[in-house]
């Protein structure tokens, strides 16, 4: 079957199997390999993408379910002049070690910041509760999200 949707702002049309998972279509058919597969069962969050602005596990969604919807993947985050504020703060604050969880963390954080401009530490923790990191101990990640939020809210 044919899937039509918007990915990172561009219209995409691709042939898919009716039972294909979204993550497989992104990674294999569309070569958007920034989205990672960790557990394949909705626990680790490495596969997080945004569908119409909401964070979801792309390993738990059928590609067919995103027909006509708008997707944002990690490839759509950086702006023309490089890393965005969130990405830059992750790099600067040691929120990345092996980097495997990073795309998912950034997507969950992006979904949060689209909804809440100045989230509390607790709101950040809750938004990232479905993203596991085995390297950083989470604190630098939470700091990076808070710093990016401050920066984005502050005077330009």
């Amino acid at each position, binding site marked *: 079957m044919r899937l039509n949707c918007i990915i990172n702002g561009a219209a995409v049309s691709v042939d898919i199997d*009716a*039972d294909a*998972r979204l993550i497989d279509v992104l990674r294999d058919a569309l070569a958007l390999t920034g989205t990672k597969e960790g557990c*394949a*069962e*909705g*626990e680790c*969050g490495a596969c*997080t993408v945004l*569908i119409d602005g*909401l*964070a*979801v*596990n792309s*390993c*738990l*969604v*059928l590609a*067919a*379910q995103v*027909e*006509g919807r708008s997707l944002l993947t990690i490839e759509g985050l950086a702006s023309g002049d490089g890393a965005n504020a969130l990405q830059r703060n992750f790099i600067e604050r040691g929120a990345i070690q092996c980097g495997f969880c990073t795309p998912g963390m950034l997507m*969950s954080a992006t*979904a*949060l910041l689209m909804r809440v401009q100045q989230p509390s530490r607790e709101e950040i923790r*809750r*938004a990232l*509760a*479905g*993203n596991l990191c085995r390297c950083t101990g989470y604190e630098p990640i939470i700091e990076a999200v808070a710093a990016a939020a401050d920066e984005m809210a502050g005077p330009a």
Partner: protein
Amino acid sequence: MAALATALGRATPASRLIAGGTDVMLQLRASGERPDLLIDISGMGELVFVREQGGRIHIGALTSFARIEADGLLRIHANCLSQAAAHVGSAQVRNIATIGGNVANASACADAIPALLALDADLGIVDRTGQVRRYPLREVLARAGGPRPGVGEAIVDLSFASLRDHQRSAFAKVGVRSSVAVARLNAALFVTLDAARASIAGARIAFGSVAPVAFLDERVAAGLCGRALDEDTAQRFADACAALVTEAIAQRASRPYKQWAIRGLADDLWNAIRGSPTH
């Protein structure tokens, strides 16, 4: 809806219905099963709603837990369900998982089910002729062959009575990793207080993750009736919950942990009921 009835008409026992997809995707992957027909209803916007009508609250089967958690009407009328929704999986799972799917799969740890049992919810189930019939959730759960809607059927909505003055509900859960791990133990309590709001006139309590399917327990509920909202009742309530767990899971390895956990759970429920404002 007409399209849904048509699709249901083609369903066989090997077909699967996709609501949010979170459970079905995992089951298909784990079993390697390839259904002859996948009926994806996740795009049916008309099954996403929360509204009050004729003294009852109705929730569309495809309403996500994120929506349920955020809904103002449900905070007032179904505190236990709002709380249960807030405890489902992670933000990502709450955005996809639907209440209808949670009920249809009815795994032992499905968070919504104890809350819906405590609210005495019923289900609207559509068949392949397009006709919707209503069934009490507790009966559907007790059906032989499991709680799922039958072949060629789909849950379209859930409903329960609007909260009246002096009624309250609460949900509590104890898990190993509370925000993500599937529930290890959860329960929902619904009480009707007497006119003076000093004692309990009626109660329903439902437990999840104790047995293969969540259930209402009449004995624990009866033990609350006629009792004052005081420390003595709180103690009796915790004892009754602990006794129930001892009985229900005598053989399981998780018993020592659950016996300990149930007291914390009973405490949480009790404090929420005693502390929450009446509406």
